[in-house]
């Protein structure tokens, strides 16, 4: 079975790198990272991820804005998005029903196991 492809968009170098490494360590994921929100669409276009892990608060363009652009793009609109944010606590994320603008929302810091659970849920495996 082909590895699931995950695109991580986050302006925090360390977050991106370690999430990539830990996901790749655990399982069948091929992970690419993108540090700038505005480049997320281009990255998605050539990488064709199965799911995008999207930071919400980024300096150039917000994750929610990136999500809107993705949804407006014919080619990319079906890629599932999971928001990953440092701006709300886990409790607050849970109170939102773990949803932000129709996409799943995970509060940082998140452990690799919880992240994989959420990825599996979204990938339907």
């Amino acid at each position, binding site marked *: 079975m082909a590895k699931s492809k995950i695109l991580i968009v986050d302006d925090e170098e*360390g*977050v991106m790198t370690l*999430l990539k490494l830990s996901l790749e*360590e655990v399982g069948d994921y091929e992970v690419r990272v993108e540090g700038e929100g505005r480049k997320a669409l281009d990255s998605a276009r050539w990488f064709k991820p199965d799911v995008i892990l999207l930071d*919400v608060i980024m300096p150039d363009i917000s994750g929610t804005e990136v999500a809107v652009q993705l949804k407006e793009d014919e080619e990319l609109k079906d890629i599932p998005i999971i928001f990953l944010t*440092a701006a709300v606590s886990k409790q607050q994320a849970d109170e939102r029903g773990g949803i932000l603008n129709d996409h799943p929302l995970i509060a940082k810091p998140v452990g*690799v196991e919880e992240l994989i659970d959420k990825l599996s849920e979204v990938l339907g495996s």
Partner: protein
Amino acid sequence: MARSAAKKILLVTSDSGAAEKYTSCLGSVRDPAMAVEHMPDLKSVVERLDDHEPDAILLDTGIENETNLADIARILSQGGHIPIVALVPSDDHAALNLLELGVQDYVARDDITGPRLAGIISKAIVRRRHENKLHQEAAQLREQEEELRDSLGRLERAHTELKMSQNSMADAERSEAIARLTAGVAHEVKNPLQIMRSGMDLIKMQLKDRTRTMNVAIEQMEEAINRANAIIMELLDFARPRELEATVQELNPIIEKSLLLMKNELAKNHIKLVTQFDAHVAPLRLNKTKIGQALINLFINAVHAMRNQGGGELTVISRMTQVEVNDRTRQFEEVEEGRGESAVIVQIMDTGPGINEALLQKVLEPFFSTKSEGEGTGLGLSVTRKIMQLHGGDLYIANRETGGAMVTLLFRDFYPDLSVVDVYSDSEISEDTVKLPVAVVE
């Protein structure tokens, strides 16, 4: 020089002989001429005054007694602005009393000539006119003073209100600043925490052959990440939106349920629980989760206060009462039925060491804590108070006379007009709501 108009004089005497004498006496006077009208008694004067305004009253005080004085006083009260000249016996020392009453002048009955009497009357009239003018001016001054006092009162009230709104604006600004700061700090701290968490995950996965020491280190580091995150969560919770969803709920079951969650903690610390719940407590419009959280915060504080002394007693009371709340001093007083406003109060009392009087007000400020490091962030009480304020109520803290601390939760309004706006329960979160940390917080 033109002659002035004749002065109208009411002559009051029961003695018709005297009346004739004085009338003719004054009749001889010109400039001013005196038109004398005779009244046989004071009663007729009182009646006459209703439709006739003399320039002066010439009053023969034939019988000097209490009744007479009272009658004179009555005339004065009715026609106080009309000058009265009294005709008195030559040796009458009581004449001074007449002056005290407000009679303008007196003249000895036997010592009279027309010009002299006319002169006295004329002077009395002039004096009275001046006095009346003075009275009028004094009255005007009093009126102006009254107006000034009113304006001053209004100014003072406006000033107080302004001050209060300035204070609450300052409070709001401070809260806003704290909220911004909190959201910013939280965001900055949670990213490094994510790095540490992922790093720990990686280390655990890759480092299969770990020594006991390594395991202890990993465990401690994970614990540290969790603790740091817990503090951040508490901070974010403190800076949560100021509006919340409220439904009509019975209060007592919420208290009972919160106490149930404390059961183990109470037993472990040898704390006896005493409850007195008033079954007549009216239902309140509240957010069950938040009130539960507030109560548990307070129960935990009480336990912390008592556990170092090896136990104690936690008393929880709910009741309907009447209160008067002073919003300015942030104090409340229970008052008797019929005064103040209805309220529900919940009191949580411990038998711990109480709170240093100097710190009583401070304990409600954010980030203030009397607990040892690691036990609390100092947000518990201020969060709890904020929850109460969101419910239109407040939190008060005091020391008990018998020792220990007492926290009172006051619900002033059974159905406070809370707007049911909760961004977190709204599936249609707008872009603005999530773009910035402060928007998320707000």
